[in-house]
């Protein structure tokens, strides 16, 4: 059997991440979380691309060293080319193209959203085709029917804010720091999810689209009406707000995913993206899947947020089908699936 070794690069937002996959087996996955962002309450584009420039070479070296792979052994370089922040994407894309060109091996452009779906295919067991895939992160909320390898149908999308963005913005209203998702998750554990009734937009409608800006606004009105803005919110009330907000987002995500799976007649459902690390989403999706006789797949935490492993996984699959990209391929900030 021919040995296929793929280097995967991911720089679409605030993570510089590099992974090595050999014959479908992950050998290394280095994620350099850029804690520099925490001070500023959000992803800062310039800082992001500067940090990527500083980190890309050391992170590649570390991923290669950990995998015990020499660069002469690489078969191809796979890179996330979009969607993402332009300045950040370009660092990975330009590095990846130069690296592939220098080694005389193929360059493989990977769609970041497609890669999130394949984060469920890195370790066994993997979903069977067709499957219903929910990708939820700071920048995206998408329900995708994966009909066959690389055959997608977008079943639903957000009409306004991404689910993770709602988490980040509500966390900011509550002065909880960045990233908002994990903070809200922590506080919510001590709170009552039924304490405050926030809306569940489109939850009962027949389509599979999402809207999260209304939930964000409801939290804002709740804080305003109860004179809680820019004040110290009592610990228990803060926990209740977090739990109630989180449960309204999770309810919508779970209901829509289950219904989409039923309507399209698929048995396997998969969740990916940064918000799939949320503990309530994991628990509720698991319960709902079991209740409805569906098989649920959620990746390990390290494959939830942006990571090089999922890029390398798609790269490996494309390599086997000889789907390569020209060396003049470039980054596309709002690339669609």
């Amino acid at each position, binding site marked *: 059997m021919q040995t296929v070794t793929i280097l995967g690069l991911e720089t679409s*937002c605030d993570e510089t991440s590099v992974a090595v996959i050999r014959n479908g087996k992950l050998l290394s996955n280095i994620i350099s979380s850029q804690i520099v962002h925490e001070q*500023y309450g*959000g*992803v*800062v*584009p*310039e*800082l992001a*691309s500067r940090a990527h420039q500083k980190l890309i070479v050391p992170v590649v070296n570390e991923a290669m060293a950990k995998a015990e792979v020499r660069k002469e052994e690489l078969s191809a370089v796979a890179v996330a080319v979009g*969607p*993402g*922040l*332009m*300045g950040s994407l370009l660092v990975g894309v330009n590095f990846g193209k130069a690296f592939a060109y220098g080694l005389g091996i193929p360059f493989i452009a990977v769609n970041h959203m497609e890669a999130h779906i394949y984060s469920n295919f890195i370790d066994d067991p993997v979903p069977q085709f067709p499957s219903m895939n929910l990708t939820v992160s*700071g*920048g*995206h909320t998408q329900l995708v029917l994966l009909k066959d390898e690389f055959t997608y149908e977008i079943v639903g*999308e*957000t*009409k*306004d*804010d*991404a689910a993770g*963005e709602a988490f980040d*913005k509500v966390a*900011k*209203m509550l002065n909880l720091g960045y990233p908002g998702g994990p903070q809200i998750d922590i506080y919510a554990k001590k709170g009552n999810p039924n304490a405050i009734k926030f809306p569940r937009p489109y939850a009962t409608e027949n389509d599979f689209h999402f809207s999260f*800006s*209304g939930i*964000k*606004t*409801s939290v*804002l*009105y709740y804080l*305003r009406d109860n004179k809680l803005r820019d004040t110290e919110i009592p610990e228990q009330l803060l926990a209740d707000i977090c739990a109630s907000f989180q449960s309204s987002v999770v309810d919508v995500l779970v209901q829509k995913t289950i219904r989409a799976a039923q309507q399209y007649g698929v048995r396997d459902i998969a969740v990916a993206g940064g918000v799939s690390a949320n503990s309530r989403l994991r628990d509720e999706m698991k319960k709902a899947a079991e209740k409805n006789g569906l098989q649920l797949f959620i990746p390990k935490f390290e494959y939830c947020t942006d990571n090089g492993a999922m890029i390398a996984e798609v790269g490996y699959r494309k390599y086997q089908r000889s789907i390569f990209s020209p060396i003049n391929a470039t980054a596309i*900030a*709002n690339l669609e699936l």
Partner: protein
Amino acid sequence: MKHIVTHNEEETIQAGEEFSRQLTAGSVVALVGDLGSGKTRFAKGISRGLGVKENVTSPTFTIVNEHPGGRLPLYHFDCYRLRTIAELDEIGYDEYIFGSGVCVLEWADMIEPKLPKQRFDIRCALGADENERIITIEQR
């Protein structure tokens, strides 16, 4: 100066759609207002008015979304996550602003010194009840 009171999301979108009729190549629209005050809805209305087919979502993640395909190209910015004005150079701000499309900038107050003098200022504010929004339009 023009004041509009809207009573639901659709009315806010319609206000944006109505407003978009006066936009020409190179127009800059500065949107200002609190979280949840209707900025993205108003921008959605502008895109609908320009005839953009695709779904216009919050550009918070990518900072700027390009929507060609309408009567004029639409460049939809979100300055929410910018830390310094210098960071605008990173996304090619000047090329958009001095280009031949329509630039709509959410959280424009964060980049005040970089806004062109000739522009539309749109202020979105929360109204008395949960769905009411007060929109102020001023041409400068």
